[in-house]
C-alpha cells in the first residue's frame, strides 16, 4: 500500500517540462530530480515528500522518449502517478523502470492538490483519504504484472537471459 499527498497537474504534461533537455547532459537520477518539473512548477522540488503521489489529466508524459523523465520523477520521491491517460512511450518507460502508474480517469479528475491518497497496486484500488471516496483502476495485463513483479525490464531480461558467456 502506498500513501502520500497528491501533487496535481493538468493535461498534456510533456517530457520537456518534466525534465528540460538542458539538463540531459547527465543521466544521474539525483541531478535530474533537482530539476524535475522546474519549467512548469519551480516549487515542486521543495514541496515533494517521499511517497507523494502525482496526479494528472490526459496524455501525461507526451513528447520525447527520454527515460530521464520517469527517472527524475521517481528519484524525486514520487511513489506513483495517477493520470486519466499516459502517452505511450512514458507508459512503457515507467513500467520498464518500475515506477508505478495507474490509468484511472475518475480518480485523476476528482483528486485535488494536497489530498491524502492511498493506492493498492495489486488490486488497483485508489482511496482519497481526504474525501473518503474510492476508485478502481483497470488492472495491468498479466505480462505487465510479470514485468512489474520482476522489478522492471532489467530484472525480467536478466532472468530470461541467465548469464551470457
Amino acid at each position, binding site marked *: 500500500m502506498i500513501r502520500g499527498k497528491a501533487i496535481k497537474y493538468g493535461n498534456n504534461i*510533456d517530457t520537456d517540462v518534466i525534465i528540460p533537455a538542458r539538463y540531459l547532459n547527465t543521466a544521474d537520477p539525483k541531478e535530474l530530480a533537482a530539476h524535475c518539473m522546474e519549467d512548469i512548477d519551480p516549487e515542486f522540488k521543495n514541496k515533494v515528500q517521499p511517497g507523494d503521489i502525482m496526479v494528472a489529466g490526459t496524455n501525461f508524459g507526451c513528447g*520525447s522518449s*527520454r527515460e530521464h523523465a520517469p527517472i527524475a520523477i521517481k528519484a524525486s520521491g514520487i511513489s506513483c502517478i495517477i493520470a486519466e*491517460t499516459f*502517452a505511450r512511450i512514458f507508459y512503457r*518507460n515507467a513500467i520498464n523502470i518500475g515506477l508505478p502508474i495507474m490509468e484511472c480517469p475518475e480518480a485523476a479528475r476528482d483528486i485535488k492538490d494536497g489530498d491524502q491518497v492511498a493506492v493498492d497496486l495489486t488490486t488497483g484500488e485508489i482511496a482519497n483519504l481526504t474525501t473518503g471516496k474510492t476508485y478502481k483502476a483497470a488492472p495491468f495485463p498479466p505480462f505487465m504484472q510479470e514485468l512489474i513483479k520482476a522489478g522492471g525490464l532489467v530484472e525480467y*531480461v536478466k532472468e530470461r537471459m541467465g548469464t551470457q558467456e
Partner: protein
Amino acid sequence: MGMTITQKILAAHAGLDKVEPGQLIMANVDLVLGNDITSPVAIREFKRMGAKRVFDKKKVVLVPDHFTPNKDIKSAEQCKVIREFARDMEIENYFEVGQMGIEHALIPEKGLVVPGDVVIGADSHTCTYGALGAFSTGVGSTDMAAAMATGQAWFKVPEAIKFVLKGRLNKWVSGKDVILHIIGMIGVDGALYQSMEFTGEGMASLSMDDRFTIANMAIEAGAKNGIFEVDDKTLEYVKEHSTKEYKIYKADEDAEYSKVFEIDLSSIPLTVAFPHLPSNTKTFDEIGDIPIDQVVIGSCTNGRLSDLRIAAQILKGHKVHPRVRTIVIPATQRIYLEAMREGLLEIFIEAGAVVSTPTCGPCLGGHMGILAKGERAVATTNRNFVGRMGHVDSEVYLASPAVAAASAITGKISSPEEVVG
C-alpha cells in the same frame, strides 16, 4: 477480421499468424537505435542486465546527434561512453561526428531501414521510417538495452486510424502542413496508442521527403507509429539507398480501423502551430502580425534536401530581416554536401543566414540557437512545448521550410506569397 499493415508486420515478427489489437507480444527487431542522450542510460541498463554482447553487431545503430559536436564537458563524456561501447561491441553502424547526421534523416539515407522492418529507437521520432512502410516506433533507454541484449521488444498491438489521401497539394503547401493540419484536427492525443496508416491515390503526389515529415510527427498526435503503404516511389527510394531485402505488407481488405479520415490534399492550407502544443494550429487568415527573433530550418522533420531547396528558392536574392537570426541546419553530411554543390549554402549565406553542421541542437533547446526570455522563433522542427527551445518564457511556432524562409525575410510569421508571389 483482417489486419492493418502494422498488425501484419508485428505478427510476422512475433512468429504469429494473427494478432489482435490490445494483444501483448514479443517481437524480433530488425534495428535498434539510440542517440547521445538516450544511449548512455541504455548502456548502463545493458550492463545491469548482465549482457556481454549485443545480439547483432549489424543491427544496432548509435548516432551521437543531439548535443554534438559536443556542446559541453558533460555532453562530451556522454558521447565518450557511446564511442567506447561501440568500439567494445564492434558495432558496425556507429556514426562519428563527420559521418553523423540527424538520426532519422541519416538512417534511411544509409539504407538501414526497408519496407516490412520492425525498428525501435530510443528517440520518439523513430516513427519517421513509417514513410518506408516499416513499423518503427520510439521507446525508452531500458527498451533499447533489452533489445540490444536480446533482439526483441514487447509491444501492445495497436489499433489504427486510416487516413485516405486524395487530390494534390497546392503551391507552397508541403508534408509539414499536412501533418500539422492533421494534428490540429485530431489533437496531441488523437492517435494515442494507435497507428496512423496513410493510403489513397493522393499519396502518389507526395515526395518521399514529404512522407518522412508526415510519419516523423505521428508521435505528436500520440501515435505509436505512422505508416505509409508501399508504392513505386517507396521502392524507387529503397533501390537507390539499400541492398537489404524488403517485404511489402498490405492491409487486408477487411482490416478494422478505429476511425477513417478522408483528407483532400488540395484543401490543406499553409499551417502554423502556435505555442505551446503542436495541435494549436492556425492558418494565415487568422495569424496577424507576429514579429519574430529567430528562424530555424532543419531537424529530423525538415532538414532534408528538398526542404533546403524550398528555403533557398524563397531566400534567393533576399536578405533576412535584421532582427531575425536565421539558422539553417542540413540534416546529414550528404545533404550538406549536396546543398553546397547545388549552391544552396551560398544563397543562405548571401541572405545573411548561418549554416550549421548537422545537429539536433536547437530543436530541443540543446545548443546552436537557444532563445532568451520573451523571444519567438519560427522553426521547421516538431515541438513547441513550454521551454522547448530555451527560456521557459520563449515561444516556438512550428511551420514548413517555405513559411520559415518567408518569415526570416519579413521578420514576422509570413506566407511565401508575401515574399515571392
